[in-house]
């Protein structure tokens, strides 16, 4: 198609849309008013096929192309098949389609089995299909076999292998309710013997199985956690109220999660830039999109992450290989204390290693800001009416919200307000 042409043939449009090396054939498969569906077989490379590996190896690609004369569009659909660019493969497919043709035309015995072909030397399709494979033993989507073979969890425990959460969860529920927080919104399943999440879906207690997490949730009112990995670095003079504390199986009890409640977590988010983790010398501050492992949860040998041990490998630490060890335990059994956002921000400020505020101008939170329209001249702008506001006015006059994963802004109160 020449750049100045006003019209182009369907052939030219298809060739341009596919950008292929060579078209081997085209079949019209369906017509719906002014829309015509075709299947085109082409030679191309895998990296140019959506859904194929991003490598430049040659493939045969059969793909649906939709030609719509109502608006003169030619669209390459995602309904396609790609296979190695190989004559034997193409021939096998031809034979397979030939059999389908015969079946559809009534030329084959209805009880006849499928046509079986192999285009790969050394792979007998009959033997392939009859070969026995071992099914993994799963329960609730978790691999019981693997857990049993790695040890470290006592199957005699009433909650072993996913029968239910450890009994300590009842105390956690009581502490959450005491703090006016819904247990059902905060508790999630973790992988048995590990601290990895199953799906981060909040569940009622009777749907928990084995290890469990306590979600902090990215919302203004709720939990924050201090993950104290290096207690010696924690500012000694800083006065935090007594609260619920949970230790991990690794290190002594001073390595712990301090769990607090705050009604203005949004202010902390503003300070650190996102519902994220803020690392300092003593460990991490978690405010939103994180969870703490619930007390009573137990790490197994393969769930251990102590020292250089890699999770999933055999040979964890002594605690995690011991069926009586590896527990997360409550080390301070107290009600979840409430702190204000200023206290947490102050804690960051007196903590060594807190540099975000100094870094912030050079490294804004790209994820949060990426989709926000800054409008002409870089001013924050309403995505509905286009009104612009100064940086100072924007927080008060614009409302930020996420639509389908991207951030949009509207005038607070509505665009006519």
């Amino acid at each position, binding site marked *: 198609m020449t750049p100045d042409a006003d019209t182009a043939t369907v052939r030219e449009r298809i060739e341009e849309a596919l950008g292929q090396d060579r078209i081997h054939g085209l079949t019209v498969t369906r017509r719906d008013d002014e829309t015509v569906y075709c299947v085109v077989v082409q030679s191309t490379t895998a990296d140019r096929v959506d859904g194929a590996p991003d490598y430049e190896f040659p493939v045969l690609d059969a793909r649906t192309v939709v030609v719509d004369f109502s608006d003169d569009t030619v669209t390459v659909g*995602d309904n396609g098949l790609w296979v190695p660019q190989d004559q034997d493969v193409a021939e096998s497919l031809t034979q397979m389609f030939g059999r389908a043709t015969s079946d559809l035309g009534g030329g084959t015995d209805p009880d006849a089995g499928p046509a079986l072909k192999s285009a790969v030397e050394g792979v007998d399709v009959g033997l392939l299909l009859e070969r026995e494979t071992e099914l993994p033993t799963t329960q609730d989507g978790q691999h019981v076999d693997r857990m049993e073979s790695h040890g470290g969890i006592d199957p005699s425990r009433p909650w072993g292998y996913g029968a239910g959460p450890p009994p300590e969860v009842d105390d956690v529920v009581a502490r959450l309710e005491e703090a006016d927080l819904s247990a059902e919104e905060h508790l999630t399943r973790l992988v048995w013997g590990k601290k990895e999440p199953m799906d981060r879906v909040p569940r009622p207690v009777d749907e928990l199985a084995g290890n469990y997490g306590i979600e902090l949730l990215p919302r203004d009112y709720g939990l924050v956690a201090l993950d104290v990995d290096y207690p010696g670095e924690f500012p000694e003079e800083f006065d935090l109220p007594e609260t619920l504390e949970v230790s991990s199986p690794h290190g002594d009890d001073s390595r712990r999660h301090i769990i607090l409640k705050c009604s203005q977590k949004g202010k902390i988010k503003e300070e650190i830039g996102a519902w994220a983790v803020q690392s300092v010398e003593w460990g991490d501050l978690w405010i939103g999109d994180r969870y703490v492992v619930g007390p009573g949860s137990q790490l197994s040998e393969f769930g251990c992450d102590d020292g250089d041990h890699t999770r999933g490998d055999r040979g964890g630490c002594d605690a995690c290989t011991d069926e009586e060890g590896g527990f997360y335990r409550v080390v301070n059994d107290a009600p979840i204390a409430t702190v204000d956002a200023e206290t947490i921000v102050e804690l960051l400020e007196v903590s060594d290693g807190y540099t975000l505020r100094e870094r912030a101008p050079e490294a804004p939170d790209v994820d949060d800001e990426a989709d926000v329209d800054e409008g002409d001249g870089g001013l924050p702008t309403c995505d509905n009416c286009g009104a612009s506001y100064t940086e100072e006015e924007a927080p008060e006059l614009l409302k930020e919200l996420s*639509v389908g994963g991207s951030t949009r802004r509207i005038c607070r109160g*509505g665009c006519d307000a």
Partner: protein
Amino acid sequence: MPKTIADYEDAVRRIAAKHVPADATTEDEVRRALSGSEVGPQVTRDVLDGIAENLLTEDRVLEAIEDSGELPSEGEIDAIVSVADDYDMDDRVETVEDAVRSSVATVEDVQGAVRDRQDQAAASGRPTFREDVEGAVDEVAETKQFVGESPDEVTAEQAREIGAPSETAFRGAAARTIANGDQVNPSEVLEDTRSETPVSVIRDTDGGVVAATGAQREELGEQVAEQYGVEYMSAQEVEDSLGTRGTGDRVSLTLGGRKVGEVDVE
């Protein structure tokens, strides 16, 4: 990133225009409409989901409102529906906006219900309490869902907005005001009495006397009140005459329009 159906704007618009009826305003309804149409067998489940998730629906708008963390105003619903429509489908904008408006509580709904409760309280000659605000919010919640904020959060905000303490907090503050009045010995302010049974004098925050109360004999109380140029009131009358003024976390307790104390709004 592999392209998804959402990247083919024209395709989504045409498929939706042809196969999704205008009254299919939720994701599920869109998905069902597509599955049942001739498009259904031609596309994968992912494509159906992609269209349903990217098309303007009530779910998409509700998620956006929820993400804003605030109860929307009517104007904001209008704006959110517009910015949530990635495919410029005016017909859908109208039907989805109507559906959302009829199901989601707005700031205006709550404020209207609260105003009614304020009018009722004023007609009964008493301040508006947090319980009145709760009642108003519950009334709205009976017919509409709260998205962005819970009814409890809205109640707390509205109570602060209009300065409505809980009745318990108000009664407690009233009792403290009465109990903390200055104890005046009648014989010190009246010439013709030797009574030393104290009368309580309620002062405003500037120190001026606003009322006298708590006399053992009403007649003696009235004489003491007359000396200060104020009215004598029984404790019950004082409580019934107390009002509130201001907004926010803490409001003034007033008697005869003068500030005699403060009460927390929770």
